[in-house]
């Protein structure tokens, strides 16, 4: 499989690896009464699994549709490899799309659906048959070639949609909320499956989703979008451990944001007076200190940052116990690992000290703490 995927159609075979597969330069998309995408620039390196993550209406799908050629940008440039593709219709772009509702052709067999793109490109019959069989095997649907889409389950239809796009060996595969219609269990299974397939074929995947867990499971780079702009772009661990904005901190997982003011080189004085140490990254002035719930220990000794409070609620959720603690700096959520049965979480009403390490403390702007509440 890897050999065939390296074989690309057209003239763009011999590129230096330095050229990104997809490059957006200051792309803006305005509709009649709104700006869906508000100046996006990004580069997606070859072979990567890239996710555009954000709530509905953040412009992620519009961005994907512009790469696919279904929408034209109002401003800016879009490159596939070294070619500017703005103004080129979808059928002249070396990308294929897995649509949200699959959009399988209901009047054609599975085989007919998968062969559609190859037929349009006039691939010789023998080669076509081989490639269709090969890709159906890859997605585990070898025995289904003659069936019609309506005879398949949702998960199987999803695989056909994937096969139909992948069989063309596109430069880039676009996935628009590909798992949105599947139930939770199947979705988890397909997440790993998609990742395996992407490793196997080595094609660049651009994946749009509103599900942060899905993005973190599959992608090696995530662009978090909000209001038509990219909030932060980076690998999942970086986005999670070092969110750059309150929006990202709130959208990826749960975080506690404690408002305060920078004091010195590595400390923040919280509004109620406590001083916590943090990785400031050169920030100053009014900020919010952030810490993830699972980084906090109940009781002293978890790290040098300490904050006293009173337990107001606890909820046992299996892998962890969720604890809500009222402190002078605000309400703080804590996930306490259930390391051993029985549990030693103090009862509500108990006064405790919360502690965490300075390295686990990130800093975001205080002003956009408001935004987080709007989107929640």
């Amino acid at each position, binding site marked *: 499989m890897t050999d065939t995927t390296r074989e690309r159609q057209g003239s763009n075979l011999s590129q230096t690896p330095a050229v990104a597969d997809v490059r957006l330069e200051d792309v803006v998309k305005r509709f009649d009464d709104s700006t869906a995408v508000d100046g996006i620039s990004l580069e997606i390196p070859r072979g990567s699994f890239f996710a555009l993550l954000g709530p509905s209406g953040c412009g992620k799908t519009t961005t994907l549709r512009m790469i*696919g*050629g*279904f929408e034209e940008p109002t401003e800016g440039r879009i490159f596939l490899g070294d070619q500017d593709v703005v103004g080129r*219709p*979808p*059928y002249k772009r070396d*990308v*294929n*799309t897995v*649509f949200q*509702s699959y*959009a*399988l*052709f*209901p*009047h054609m067999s599975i085989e007919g659906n998968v062969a*559609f*793109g190859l037929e*349009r*490109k006039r691939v010789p019959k023998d080669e076509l048959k081989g490639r269709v069989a090969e890709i159906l095997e890859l997605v585990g649907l070898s025995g289904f070639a003659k069936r019609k889409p309506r005879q398949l389950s949702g998960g199987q239809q999803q695989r056909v949609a994937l096969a*139909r*796009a992948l069989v*063309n060996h596109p430069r880039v595969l676009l996935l628009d909320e590909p798992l949105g219609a599947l139930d939770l269990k199947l979705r988890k299974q397909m997440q790993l499956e998609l990742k395996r397939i992407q490793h196997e074929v080595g094609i660049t995947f651009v994946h749009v989703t509103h599900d942060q867990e899905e993005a973190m499971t599959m992608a090696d780079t995530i662009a978090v979008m909000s209001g038509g702009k990219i909030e932060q772009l980076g690998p999942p661990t970086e986005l999670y451990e070092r969110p750059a904005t309150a929006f990202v901190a709130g959208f990826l997982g749960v975080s506690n944001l404690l408002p305060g003011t920078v004091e010195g080189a590595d400390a923040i004085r919280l509004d109620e007076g406590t001083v916590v140490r943090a990785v400031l990254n050169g920030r100053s002035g009014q900020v919010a200190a952030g810490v993830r719930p699972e980084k906090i220990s109940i009781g002293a000794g978890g790290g040098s940052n300490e904050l006293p409070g009173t337990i107001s609620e606890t909820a046992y959720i299996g892998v962890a116990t969720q604890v809500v603690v009222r402190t002078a700096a605000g309400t703080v959520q804590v996930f306490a690992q259930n390391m051993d049965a029985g549990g030693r979480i103090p009862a509500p009403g108990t006064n405790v000290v919360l502690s965490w390490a300075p390295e686990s403390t990130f800093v975001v702007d205080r002003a956009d703490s408001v935004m987080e509440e709007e989107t929640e």
Partner: protein
Amino acid sequence: MGSFFHRHKGVTPYLLLAPGILWLAIFFLIPLAFLGYQSLQSGLFPDFQFTWEFSNFSNAIRDYHEQFARSFVYAGIATIACLVLAYPLVYWIAFRAGPWRNLFLLFIVAPFFVTYLVRTLAWLNILADEGPVVGVLRDLHVLGPDGRLLATTFAVVSGITYNFFPFMALPIYVSLEQIDPRLLEAAKDLYASSTQAFLRVTLPLSAPGIVAGTLLTFIPAAGDFINAALLGTPSQAMIGNVIQAKFLESLDYPSAASLSFLLMGSILVALLIYARIVGSERLTG
């Protein structure tokens, strides 16, 4: 009442079907059987006798095969004309008209608010020798100084096309309207140009509408007599005109009945051939 239906659950569907079955029996099956009985009678009005008079059928074919053939040719041309005119129009309404869709559909159906006869009479005026259309065509030398539109084959076929147009347009509209626009995006994503996407996706998915529209247009058109009577001359007479004259003017019920049966039979044969060509799957849905 409710408890009755509850206790006799198996009966309920039949009770609901009963009015329809009764309707079919009284207004279709019984008259049809009577027509069959009449088609084998002989004698003169009002004294017909049942004599297994099969020569009614052979005589009908011998005397009126020309009108039969003409009916099928006219109906066929009108059906094709309807298809060619309707498809682009409803395609545009389904995919391009946006919020105005229903208004345009109303325009297609609007002529139906006027009776069939009056609509055809309107065409009589439009195509009349003193009418505006003939005048303009004569001035443009499309028609000679004595050329006419009325009383020609053109007039009759146009009338049929006009009168049955909605029967073609509406089923095609319904099948086009159900097509998910994302399928067309998918086709274009898979390297199909607009023409290829139309031929490989839109057209096959609208085929059930085309088949339904063709049947709804062709079947009544083949039996039509109003258009030929008002817009044509005896040399444009269709089989419907013959049947109408036999029933109402010469009161020759047996030959009228046998002609009716022959018309039904030949339409059925035409249908079966059509079904063979387009595939029975599409006819039955």
